[in-house]
């Protein structure tokens, strides 16, 4: 009895050990591609990595973080990069995510490209500066009934260098059967406060990341984010500026305005903020206070559904309707828009009708 049990266990152990060793050995021999060179952006940076893993993880191991929301499973298509040489054929997992233009421009999903030989690739310049941060949520505060502000202290690395207007990607872990994802949120804090990141998040019904933020994320909890990304920022011309936003579109503009105050940038500036009624407004006191510190700045909250009998003294109506009253000729202005695409599209139309030059319109659509 003991003997046969021993024999069975021994046999299984020997057998699995043998097969496992065989596989390990085979992996060493067969899948050893040796060192491969990654040539990024025409020699701007070259990395020597050990072949065999994906391009996404090889880059991440060298501190270049390509956005990825699905963790490399090939289902989010965030991780697109251009691969000119050495990427091999487009695999069946990638194919559905690549448009004909993508294919013409050699775009690939970096999580699906394996490093098997020297590779020449191109990534957006800004990704060189992006890092992945571990931080701690210091506080979560309600700004309105559906918007919260998060203040995150950075732990590792402990400071971030960014330009007001840029965004980070917040990681929400798996919870209640929903996938781990990454979502973009504009930074609302100022660059000089470089040990913290603040974001302003609006609840999206059933949204994966926002539901996590509103219902699961607790103060003092560890959070992960990467960044900074994006090109939305104030130009360094002295041209008058018009800011337009709604809801959480406040975030990057709140950062830009406070940065202007720090620099004493007293260019002529208007800020139109759209809401349905007074419940949608936040930072109102602070923004009107800013008018005193920046004499050429004017804050114009516009309410579309405010009760006609309320005590509201400000503008009633949509931004495109209110705008001409303040800016009859938009020609010299630069415009910065942030928020939902319907708001942005409507406002861009209005600005165009009032003579703004197309290249002077900058926006970040939040979807």
């Amino acid at each position, binding site marked *: 009895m003991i003997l046969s049990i021993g024999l069975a266990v021994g046999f299984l152990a020997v057998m699995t050990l043998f097969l496992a060793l065989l*596989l390990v050995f085979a992996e060493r021999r067969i899948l050893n591609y040796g060192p491969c060179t990654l040539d990024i952006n025409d020699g701007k940076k070259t990395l020597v990595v050990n072949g065999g893993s994906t391009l996404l993880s090889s880059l991440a191991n060298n501190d270049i973080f390509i956005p990825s929301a699905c963790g490399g499973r090939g289902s989010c298509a965030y991780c697109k990069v251009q691969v000119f040489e050495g990427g091999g054929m487009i695999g069946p997992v990638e194919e559905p995510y690549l448009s004909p233009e993508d294919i013409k421009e050699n775009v690939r999903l970096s999580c699906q490209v394996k490093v098997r030989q020297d590779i020449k690739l191109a990534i957006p310049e800004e990704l060189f500066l992006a890092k992945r941060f571990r931080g701690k949520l210091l506080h979560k505060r309600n700004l309105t009934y559906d918007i919260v502000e998060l203040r995150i202290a950075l732990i590792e690395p402990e400071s971030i260098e960014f330009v007001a207007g840029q965004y980070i990607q917040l990681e929400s872990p798996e919870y209640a059967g929903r996938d781990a994802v990454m979502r973009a949120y504009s930074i609302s804090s100022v660059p000089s406060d470089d040990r913290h990141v603040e974001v302003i998040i609006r609840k999206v019904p059933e949204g994966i990341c926002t539901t996590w933020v509103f219902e699961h994320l607790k103060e003092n909890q560890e959070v992960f984010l990467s960044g900074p990304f994006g090109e939305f920022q104030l130009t360094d011309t002295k041209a008058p500026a018009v800011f337009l936003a709604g809801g959480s579109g406040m975030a990057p503009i709140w950062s830009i305005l406070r940065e202007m105050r720090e620099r004493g940038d007293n260019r002529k500036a208007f800020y139109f903020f759209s809401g349905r009624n007074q419940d949608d407004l936040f930072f109102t006191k602070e923004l009107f206070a800013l008018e005193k510190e920046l004499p050429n700045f004017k804050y114009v909250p516009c309410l579309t559904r405010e009760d006609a009998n309320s005590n509201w003294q400000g503008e009633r109506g949509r931004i495109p309707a209110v705008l001409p009253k303040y800016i009859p000729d938009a020609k010299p202005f630069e415009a910065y828009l942030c928020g939902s695409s319907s708001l942005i599209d409507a406002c861009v139309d209005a600005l165009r009708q009032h003579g703004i030059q197309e290249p002077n319109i900058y926006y970040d659509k939040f979807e």
Partner: protein
Amino acid sequence: MEDAANLTGLAPVMLIFISAAFTDNILLTRFLGMCSVLGVSKKVDTSLGLGAAVIFVTTCTSGLNYLVYRYLLVPLELEYLRLIVFIVVIAAFVQFVEMVVERISEGLYNALGIFLPLITVNCAILGVSLFMLGTPYNFLQTLAYGAGAGAGWALAIGIIGGIREKINEQALPRGLAGPGITLIIIGIMSLAFVGFSGMIRI
């Protein structure tokens, strides 16, 4: 009706192959390997890709497992370990093949490689190895049996893929789309395959 095992030469090998593919279709009469069918049978070309990978793996693993059983388990009187040993052998083999395919041909890897991990846990593969034990086949016949069973499975998933491509799933009641309609298709097809039963006895 012929009794295949009593014949000699190549004829029984052919017969075993055909009977394993049609009479004894592993998917449609034994209902093994359903999970991959439900998951992957949306299109003909992916169905056939998976089918080809299954043919290859059933053939090789039935052969390997035959050898392991005959020359290791039987002499050591450890036949009762067959289930677990077969699983380990299949898993290791699939891993190994995946590596080799990845190294030697990218085209082949893109066509078959992504299906290989799916196969490790495909019960049809294990089923073939276990059913083989109940037969009096020699090594060559076992390979034919494995190849036939794989081919039968590939044929079935190919047909199912074809049918599903033609079906407009949007037009189905919501609860039926996907796995629901696939199970119904499989049911009807297995009725059709009843027609083959009794043609060859093995």
